[in-house]
């Protein structure tokens, strides 16, 4: 799965989890994860949804330690493709 494909699928997941109107064209790997307004309740849904979407396990501490979408994309790229 390419990094671009992972990014696109992540945008869809985050928009669904956070009920936020997010335009895919506005999100790049440089976009801050903080910019989506994720609070603690949304965070647990987001982790659940990412795990469902990509078939991987993701710890809350791993996600909260990431700053940009590119960090999450890279993390998933390693898990999904290996």
């Amino acid at each position, binding site marked *: 799965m390419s990094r671009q494909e992972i990014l696109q699928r992540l945008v869809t997941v985050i928009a669904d989890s*956070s009920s936020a109107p997010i335009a895919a064209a506005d999100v790049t790997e440089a976009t801050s994860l903080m910019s989506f307004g994720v*609070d603690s309740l949304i965070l647990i*849904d987001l982790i*659940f*949804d990412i795990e469902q979407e990509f078939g991987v396990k993701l710890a809350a501490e791993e996600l909260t330690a990431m700053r940009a979408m590119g960090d999450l994309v890279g993390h998933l790229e390693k898990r999904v493709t290996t």
Partner: protein
Amino acid sequence: MSDDRRVAVTGLGLVTAIGHTVPAVWASLLAGRSGIRALTQPELATNTVLAGATIDPGALDPLLPPALRRADRAVKFAAETARQALTEARCLPGSAERPQEIAVIAGSGCGPTEALHATFGRFAEKGPRGMRPSSIPSCMANTMAAALSIEYGLTGTNYTVVSACTSSTNAIGIGFRMIRDGHAEAVLCVGADSSFPPFYYAMWNNLGVLSAIAESGRALRPFDTGRAGTLLGEGGGALVLESFASARRRGATIRGEVAGYGESSDATHLTGPSVAGQARAIRRALASARVSPVDIGYINAHGTGTEANDATEAQAVRDALGADCDRIPVGAMKSFFGHTLGASGIIEAIGTLLALEHRLAPRNLNLDQPDPACAVQLIGPGPCPLDRSLALKNSFGFGGGNAVLVLRRDS
């Protein structure tokens, strides 16, 4: 009774289809403006009755704390009404005069229906994999009281009463007893219900109690000969209760008093009302307030506009109050608000307090031909002056629960 045991109302809040603030609602009540409109939402289109009193929740979002902007619709109603009431009572976090500990007792007929609808949809689509971790905290029946406790730092007890159309009247009654008996310093009583998530509205539509009269503004007609059923509304109300002594110590403005509370169960039928059960609750409310029928100057009826409710309620009022029924003006507010279910008790109790404050009761909308089977003194086509400081607020619910408040506002 000592000021330590008298229960003062020191804050009010309302969000309804006829206004999102207390003054706006009062202006609409006096002007005779109903909130009932045709329902045009596409997702409701296949129901047979398409009229109700709805609120645009988007209008509330700018007023809500950020943490609650994604909350269930009924929780949003509760949060905004709570904010209004706590603000008026000077009980928001950070207020120097705020009581040490405030409890929150919420009432709701079905709780977070919007969150339930979304969750059912995800389950139908994805099965167990669609059940996100937040489903439980979003859908639990007590989510409303819990959200308010956390958002406003209310560290007294918090729970939600679920008892159909008496829910928020029960919540006020519980709050009244907590203050009167010294179990709480202050209580935030809240009621909210959201009636139009598609699964929930369809259940009401198919129950056969909604009015099929085509002209939506004329379709809900409490106590009228031509009544044909109720119509749903949505919204919320909130009030802050504390003792008179506490209110005076804090310098809070006293908007009225909860003077008594009575409750009972019919123990006869899930949906059919009972004269005996309702009359028993009214008598208990009067006894609790230590007043007699002669002291009552206004009755705010449950008045759903169904054939069974209105005739039963009128007979129960007559049985409990006797000859004073020929004098006491009776009004019903559901033709303004729609039937807001578990929230109706507190919304209409606040309407009652406003009527006492202004010594003027709003008219009965759509009462063209009073039903002779409803032998009470129904308010006519104009507002009615009130000459006494005490009123009754009736609420009766599916499940056979009856709850009645005695409310007071001295001149």
